[in-house]
């Protein structure tokens, strides 16, 4: 369907955005998903249609409300548009006007009326230890509430690192047995949007896909939508040329740090973290507003086994590599001071192995992506 055949006037009025802006957003999402322009128009139409908005049940487990707060900072579209125009948020503890049994009744009613049709969003980890006593809502444990809500959900989204893989409270010794939704709901497909908190665009982009196509977007072996988590932070980092050239900052505020050099030797986990932080950035400001952009190493907050797991300043495993092999190896490059001999050897081994195996770095990059992003659906 051609773009000019579609009447957007109603949509403009309702969403408060003009047709051009809205189509541009849909085109962006479609392009990220690898879809043609026609899909963007289909998305826009799905949103413009005043049919029943998809009901959403939102559970809060062990969490800090960071993901919901992130939504409050979303602008593509805003939370206001999401709630008033895109979805019907039938249960959400942070936003519901009523409290106590009023909201619990509302939740039960929506789950009953919309059996098999509601989207279940889980924010927070699920504590399994000691029969789930570490998180209770309305006298029920989070474990029971999650099982109940998951049974007849049309789709399940784990929003945030806590829901995706356990998050901060699952760090050793994991006192409460905090578990992510995919691990807890073993027999279900769970779309995961990890991050602490995640970029809200990754969540809303995937919800918009669900609203449009009636199913979840393609995901990798960890349940992450490929459109958002298909690449390593390292691959699109604006400091990457400094990594390739061997220019590293070694301490906050040192000469290399002031010059915007690579933060790898300060423990940046960009090389082992799949996320779009380095391309999308945060809070719609521009000019490198994301952790590495303010001079701090990525700590892999979205990556299971990295965030809240590896020490903040330890060297990352360089998963994909890396500079052409005519470049000097890492230990021969300039400014290797400030790290221990052991750390340098470790880094040398990791990068050395990668370089040794690389004939054409571009080819390797593609292979790595396809290996780590196996289709699950």
């Amino acid at each position, binding site marked *: 369907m051609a773009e000019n055949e579609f009447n957007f006037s109603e949509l403009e009025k*309702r969403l408060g955005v003009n047709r051009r802006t809205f189509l541009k957003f849909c085109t962006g999402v479609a392009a990220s998903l690898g879809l043609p322009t026609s899909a963007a128009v289909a998305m826009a139409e799905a949103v413009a249609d005043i049919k029943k908005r998809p*009901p959403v049940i939102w559970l809060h487990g*062990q969490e*800090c*409300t*960071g993901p919901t*707060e992130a939504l*409050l*900072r979303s*602008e593509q579209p805003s*939370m*206001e548009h999401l*709630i008033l125009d895109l*979805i*019907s*948020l039938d249960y959400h*503890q*942070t936003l*519901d*006007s*009523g*409290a*106590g049994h*009023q909201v619990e009744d509302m939740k039960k009613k929506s789950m009953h009326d919309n059996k098999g049709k509601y989207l279940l969003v889980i924010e927070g980890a699920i*504590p399994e*230890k000691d029969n789930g*006593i*570490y*998180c*209770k*809502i*309305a006298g029920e444990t989070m474990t029971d509430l999650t099982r109940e809500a998951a049974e007849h959900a049309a789709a399940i989204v784990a929003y945030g690192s806590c829901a995706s893989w356990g998050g*901060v*409270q699952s760090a*050793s*010794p994991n*006192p*409460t047995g905090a578990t992510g939704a995919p691990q807890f709901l073993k027999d279900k497909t769970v779309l995961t949007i990890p991050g*602490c*908190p995640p970029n809200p665009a990754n969540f809303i982009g995937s919800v918009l896909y669900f609203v449009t196509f009636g199913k979840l977007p393609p995901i990798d072996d960890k349940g992450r939508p490929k459109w958002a988590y298909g690449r390593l932070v390292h691959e699109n980092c604006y400091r990457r040329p400094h990594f390739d050239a061997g220019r590293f900052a070694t*301490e*906050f*505020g040192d000469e290399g740090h*002031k*010059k*915007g050099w690579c933060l790898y030797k300060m423990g940046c986990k960009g090389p082992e973290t799949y996320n779009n932080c380095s391309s999308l950035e*945060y*809070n719609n*400001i521009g000019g490198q*507003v*994301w*952790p590495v952009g*303010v*001079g*701090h190493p990525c700590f892999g*907050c979205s990556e299971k086994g990295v965030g*809240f797991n590896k*020490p*903040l*300043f330890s060297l990352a495993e360089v998963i994909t590599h890396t500079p052409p092999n005519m470049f000097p190896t890492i230990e021969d490059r300039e400014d290797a001071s400030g790290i221990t001999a052991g750390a340098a050897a470790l880094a040398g081994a990791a990068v050395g192995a990668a370089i040794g195996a690389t004939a054409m770095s571009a080819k390797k990059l593609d292979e790595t992506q396809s290996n780590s992003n196996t289709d699950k659906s």
Partner: protein
Amino acid sequence: MSTRITVDPITRIEGHLRIDVEINDEGQVSKSWSSGQMWRGIENILIGRDPKEAWTYTQRFCGVCTTIHAITSVRAVEDALNLEVPLNAHLVRNIIQAAHALQDHIVHFYHLSAVDWVDVVSALDADPVATSKLAESLSGWSLNGPHEMKAVQDRLKTFVKSGQLGPFASGYWGHPAMKLPPEVNLMAVAHYLQALDVQQYANKIVAILGGKTPHIQNVAVGGISNSISHDAPSVLNIERLMLIEGFIDKLDHFVKTAYMTDVPAIGAFYLDWTGYGKGVTNYLSVPDCPTDTKLLDFELPGGYIQNGDLSTFKRIDDWSNEYFRKGVAESSKHAWYEGDQALHPWKGTTNPQYTDFQDEGQYSWIKAPTFYGERAEVGPLADVHVGLASGHKGYTEYTHQAVDVIKTVSKNPDIPLSALQSTIGRHAARAIRAGVMVDNLRSQWQALMDNVATGDEDTFNAPEFPKGEISGVGIHQAPRGTLSHWIVIEDAKIKNYQAVVPSTWNAGARDANDQIGPYEASLMGNPIADPEKPLEVLRTVHSFDPCIACSIHLVDTEQKEIVKVKAL
């Protein structure tokens, strides 16, 4: 005969909170319990880790109070090391603190608690032109025009017509305790929607410096990660600073013309609520926003006031103040941990001991902090009292301004200052503090500009950890009040870590002497018009701006046995 009401979950807050009240024959609350329902054990996870990375964990106490537990954590380590931090780093932290406080206060009033007082459905009956006229008569906020009010009302009509009311479906619309005229309701709904945009200005300031929000990442023990340079592609320069200034102007306009007017104007219709929600009336606040590297001067004052009487004011001048450091203790007699005695945070021991809800026994994951054995309220109401007692210019001016609006709108010339010690007064105090914080935001920004202009580019002093045991405390005046992180470090590893958090002070269970806490005390005597729809309970509890994930934590840690479950 008394009636028992359990409200679980309390909504429009951070975290999992259960409130129980007993109502007597006069329809008033005669007994109350505040119970946290979730525990994560993050402080236990910290043991043995590098103190330099503690902030990444502690910031995740809370995504609403984002930034504060990161900044306070590095302050605790810096205190233990006696490490001087460059002025630029203090000022950047102060700007983040002020901007975040504004976002937090705005969202709390408009998006989390306004619907306790504002009947959204009633706004459909308002006359948009009359609404505009009313709003224009109150302040110079630029988006009070009749077209704006009409557009908001139309949008509301479309939403209600859809039949899918989502989070608004469970609201207490038409409740007898709702008293605003339709035009005031429509004005409030318009500002509710506008405030969603306004809070973004504060978020952008936090993100420009912090790398993102929620959960900033420019944090470092010894300073900040933002390097400053004007002749290299560094991360903080004049362009970034000017971008921030533009957002400060927009925040200033909204806070001073909308927020600081709306709260007293709405409050004027609910003068009866100045008689409820008094609470414990001991007020504790700590100094914050240091403006020198020796930590001698602070923009925000601290101190302690007893029984709501300003003449009892004892000043807390700085972070090394022994009166503060020695006065804090926590009891877990009525919380789900072992032990009955109130212990100082550096010496606290805590082992979970879950019993389910016992009225006279243990009933919450939230412990009970005390200050020299007394329960104390923390937060904007405490900050305003301490601000007034210490003669702080901003607090004094804005408090009188708020009282004047109430007098004008209510046509009641007799509003004493003590009216602030109430449910509705807590909202007014938060608006007053927002005025102070927006001025503070501007002065901290100016101080940073001035300091950078001297050529000072220092942002970081590297920490060095000695052998042996050291301890420190990080202090912060958070949006919800007095926050302290207490750390013990041994051979560069965390040996003990405890956060005594604002919502722990306020939401805590009964203490070692069975005294009730601030939430519980403030609920006493509240009228309950309809036990099926206990809106009044929500009003009083929400006035504190509860943040429950923050308030629940575990100390000690040398014990390997973590959990003993008594009964299920």
